[in-house]
């Protein structure tokens, strides 16, 4: 019988599942849009992943849940996404001392001690500025796909300054720039800088030590990544699948249950 350990991250927008074997090797992972039905989506996603790999529910030796939906998910344990993110990133990048995580609903900066434990952390206020949600709103105002923002921004020679952090005001600012005939590329580069500078301030409050790892869904966005590296004046490391690093941490917790 296979011995499998599952990490389930039920975030504000997406659900991620990671399966590990007892040697802590990733066997499978996937993510799906969660939202309102987060817990059901997570259950289905876990079952689907197991089936795809010829595994059975009974093969799962331990499950740890994290993310906003963690509390009522039937797992052996729930651990905050801050500790899970730290565990996952420390596993992937043992030299990491700072994690910048930009997700759908919030952004976090976590300082790691050399042993991988959380030293200090900060989260954004109750506000969409500096989060994936901010990017979503701006993408929709400019009629581009969320995934295209980075490509557009990369083509820009200059970035239009978006002075308002408030998502609602920033959206009207973006619309004003559109009416003024500013190129989409430059406006989107400005949008990326806005997110980056908001999160950079948060990071500076916690203190930035190399190596710095950028993770969470927004880490896929090259525009934000470039702007953030400039703002904090540090190169950024990124895992190939930045969306699943907290779920990976949860799975690692499951191994050690």
């Amino acid at each position, binding site marked *: 019988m296979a011995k499998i350990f599952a990490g389930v991250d039920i975030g504000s927008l997406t659900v991620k599942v990671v399966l590990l074997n007892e040697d802590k090797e990733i066997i499978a992972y996937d993510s799906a849009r969660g939202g309102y039905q987060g817990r059901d989506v997570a259950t289905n996603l876990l079952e689907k992943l197991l089936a795809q790999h010829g595994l059975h529910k009974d093969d799962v030796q331990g499950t740890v849940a994290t993310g906003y939906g963690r509390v009522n998910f039937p797992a052996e344990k729930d651990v905050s996404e801050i*500790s899970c993110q730290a565990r996952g990133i420390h596993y992937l990048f043992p030299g990491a001392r700072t994690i910048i995580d930009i997700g759908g609903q919030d952004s976090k900066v976590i300082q790691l001690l050399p042993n991988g434990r959380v030293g200090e952390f900060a989260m954004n206020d*109750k506000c969409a500025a500096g989060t994936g949600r901010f990017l979503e709103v701006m993408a929709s105002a400019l009629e581009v796909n969320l995934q295209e923002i980075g490509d557009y921004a990369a083509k820009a020679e200059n970035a239009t300054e978006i002075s308002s952090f408030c998502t609602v005001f920033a959206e009207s600012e973006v619309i004003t720039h559109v009416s003024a005939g500013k190129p989409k590329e430059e406006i989107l580069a400005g949008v990326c800088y806005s997110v980056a500078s908001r999160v950079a301030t948060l990071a500076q409050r916690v203190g930035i030590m190399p190596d710095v790892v950028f993770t969470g869904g927004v880490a896929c966005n090259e525009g934000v990544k470039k702007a953030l590296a400039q703002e904090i004046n540090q190169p950024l490391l990124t895992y190939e699948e930045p969306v699943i690093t907290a779920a990976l941490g949860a799975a690692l917790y499951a191994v050690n249950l």
Partner: protein
Amino acid sequence: MSEIKLPSQFESFGDARKQGFIAVKNLKEQGKKVAGVFCTYAPVELVLAAGAVPIGLCAFSDETIPEAEKELPRNLCPLVKSSYGFAITDKCPYMYFSDLMIGETTCDGKKKMYELLGEIKNLHVMQLPQTQEDEASQELWYKEVLRLKERIERDFGVTITDEDIKRAIKLKNEERKVLKEFYELSKACPPPITGSEQLKVLYGSQFKFDQEAKIQEIRELIEKIKADMANGVENVSKSAKRILITGCPLAGVTEKIVKAIEESGGVVVAYENCIGIKPIENLVDETMDPYKAIADRYLKIGCSVMTPNNNRLELLSRLVKEFKVDGVVEMTLQACHTYNLETATIRKHLQKEDVPFISIETDYSTSDVAQLKTRLAAFFEMLA
């Protein structure tokens, strides 16, 4: 944390604010005067000495904020907005029954709000100095205490004799001593009661108006808890991390913080806030000139409106040691500038003493409960 059975006395304190409404109505019908106060700087001995009843007016619900925002800016602390909202809507019976309200020039939000409140209510504003150590400030505050005495005498048609004020000082000191004995029970490991229970008594005791009966009731509660302790009753897990809360006034909606802490495997052992230890710890000196003694005692309160505010740092350091605190959680209200600014000083101070610290900014809504839980869960995972 599992459901535990409370001594029935806790319920009496939990209901105190509600029960108090009827009690005040009865007192008014008997011809008693009521003085509403907003801050811990209000020297309530003067009210007691006049034979009147002091009542806390600070509001802790977002119910009246929309009404307040018709005049006040949105970007203002919820306590100021809520309190003003209750005043203009007459939704708070305590404000409604107040013959006199006493405010002080504490934070910018409160002192400018008082200008508006003064137009519709009988309000006396004391000039609170911004610093505590210099003689000119102490002299000003002493004169303000005397000016309040005159106002109370005039408005309530009484003369406060030396004997009246000395008796009031003694009675209020008695209350402080017994409350101190009560919250210091939580110095025990594990503490005999949860932080929610402790807060219920500290907050509820403001709304019991018969001083002597109140002191007696708290005494009985202490005896009951001590008896439970002697019988080996443990209400709190030994492994619960011991938390000290500091920051803005905490009651009503902001009790969500206490709940989140105690659901994450912690227990609040002490509240440094102004519903808590800060206003209780120091006594009025009974051996010197009563008004000078009152002025000295109140000016020492370590609120963030003072600059510098070293008394808060000293009190925090002392409480961390005395209550064997594992971590300090600060609660600040959105747009409370003085506390939000002071966070940096507190953080550095506690870092130096190697005490884990987290500051949480919130308001009177419940929309951030999930975020709070994440932050506090991570904080506890760090302490583990």
